[in-house]
């Protein structure tokens, strides 16, 4: 297994871990952190491919991803604060208000 294969495998593993956390964890903050893990695994994959192909496109994408992530976390934290104020709990399942 060469270096690139190892890095991609690591990215896939991190992405899967993050996804699993998003789906099964009930703590809002943990879910948001798992989203960040998924973003970071994608960034890792970008960088790996950029290094392997000796181009800058993948590296450039990294900056975009971090800008988006920064905006996202700002909005997400605001929403979380409001939700916690409203429900008094960090539990995602505290109220299934949109049940069909």
């Amino acid at each position, binding site marked *: 297994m060469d270096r690139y294969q190892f890095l991609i495998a690591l990215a896939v593993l991190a992405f899967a871990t993050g996804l699993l956390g998003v789906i099964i964890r*009930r703590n809002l903050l943990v879910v948001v952190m798992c989203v960040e893990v998924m973003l970071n695994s994608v960034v890792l994959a970008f960088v790996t491919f950029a290094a392997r192909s000796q181009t800058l496109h993948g590296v450039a994408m990294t900056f975009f991803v971090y800008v988006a992530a920064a905006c996202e976390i700002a909005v997400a934290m605001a929403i979380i604060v409001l939700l916690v104020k409203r429900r008094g709990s960090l539990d*995602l399942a505290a109220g299934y208000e949109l049940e069909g």
Partner: protein
Amino acid sequence: MGRLALIAALPLLGFLINGVVGARLPKRVVAAIACVLPALAFALTLERFVALPAGGAGMTETLFTWVAIPGLTIDVSLYFDAIAAVMCLVVTGIGTLIHIYSVGYMAHDRSFARYFAYLNLFLFFMLVLVLGKNLIVLFVGWEGVGLASYLLIGFWFEDPEKTAAGVKAFVVNRVGDTGFILAAFLIYAVVGSLDFQAVNAFFSTNRVADHITTTIGLLLLLGACGKSAQIPLHVWLPDAMAGPTPVSALIHAATMVTAGVYMLARLNGLYLATPSAMSVVAWIGAATALLGATMGVTQFNLKKVLAYSTISQIGFMVLACGLGAFAVGLFHLMTHAFFKACLFLGAGAVLHALQGEEDMRKMGALARKLPFSFATFFIATLALCGIPPFAGFFSKDEILSVAWSSSDGMPWLWLVALGASGLTAFYMFRAIWLTFFGTSRVSPEAAGAVHEPPPSMSIVLGVLAAGSLIAGFVGLPAVWQHALGVSAPFYAFLAPLFPTTSTAHGDVATEWLLMGAAVLVALVGIVLAWLRYGRAPEPAVEPVRPGPLHALVSRGYFFDTVYERVVVRFMDWLSESVLGRVVETTLADAALATPAEGARRASRWFARLQSGNVQAYAFYVLVGLALTLWWTATHD
């Protein structure tokens, strides 16, 4: 637009104007529009009539092609020949007079404009009927006059009884129309065309299997029976008297109800090819003439007496057609239009004077108070009874003579017709004595207001009475022609169109004898009516001993009862028990309830996906993404 189309279009224009904006126009303008346009149509008809070439050729006007598919082309075309000329002159002439009469009669009605709009609509459809060159155009008019008749019978629609009478007329006519349509299909299947001239030519030159021709003839007769109120479909006409009296005069006496006779005459080539259907036509006509007359004897409603009289007189016309004497049938149609319209309008004048009282038991001694109305009514009655030299004498006598002597005629038919003619004299003079003579039985509050009709009504009565007096002279019977050395322009005019009509007359002495017998029977009828109703100061209004015969006749031979008990009950049972309880529930289950239950179950199942759990949604996204990736990987 050609002139023939214009004849029909003028009343249509009147209908549109009065129907759309009539309610906002002053009554004077509405009346002017409604009367002037039919009068113009009459003038145009006269012009066309004068321009009509001799020898039976007609004028054709094709407006447009209505249906054009391979094997079937139907043109909307109009045809004006001698038959159409006679009908058009009667329709527009009598029609215009009755419009003028209506101005006075309906002057105080709330729905003045609506009335004239309907009346003009009727004229339009009637003209389409008589001018149509093929069965389809005729059928359009045929249904249209049925519609106008329905609208006008139920004109005072606040009264449920009158609305019901309109519905009855419409429904009974449907039965006849079914026969008409089936006949049209058969004619098309056999001839391949629906054009009258083509159909007549086909049947007179080609040999068609007897049973097919007879079937067509009988189906058409069914249509004629519905429209012309012949037994067994006559039941709607007495009820149709619920409409305003001028409507009864125009639609249910002079014009629409004679459409069946017109159709028989129009398709003479077809009928002459089927002697068996012809004898059925003759016997239906004779039976209707006799039964209609007997029913007229027992009625106390003045208008219903006239209604049964109309049924009976159209029976005479159908009888003439059934004997192949189409021209004689049309002649009686023409004279009948004059005197029956005059009788109805005279009855209308009486009703008008008595504030709508129709029961003859509450009339009497009106001759002195309404001398002019009485005089016109009396002239028309003499014409109807066949007293020479009034119009009805010449036409009815010719029918009797044909019944006796034509190749298809026989003494039995003659005897039946003679009996009907005697009864006609009896019930008409019964009506005269009950209405105009004897002691007054008018209710005191109505008696004070009795007055002669306004001039617009009197003039029309006068013109029609004059017509009843002289219209017969255009068609003198053969023996009179020889005796007086004159010709009969009416028969000469129609002769080229009925080439095979050879009314083989008996010898001159028999003719005079038959004529004498007819007059004698009419006089006997009059004398009997006088003995029964005229002699005593207080006429006996009830039968001496009301027996089963009286019950049978006065209830119209139980036609209505039988239809009610058999047809209506059966339909009720069918729709209630079979269609309502079995067919509808089964169909509704199969077509509606089962699919609805399926949809409800499916939606309940899908609703479970909407758990409200954000993480479940994220999972669905994951699954969807995975499936998309898998699909792209394997399919590319």
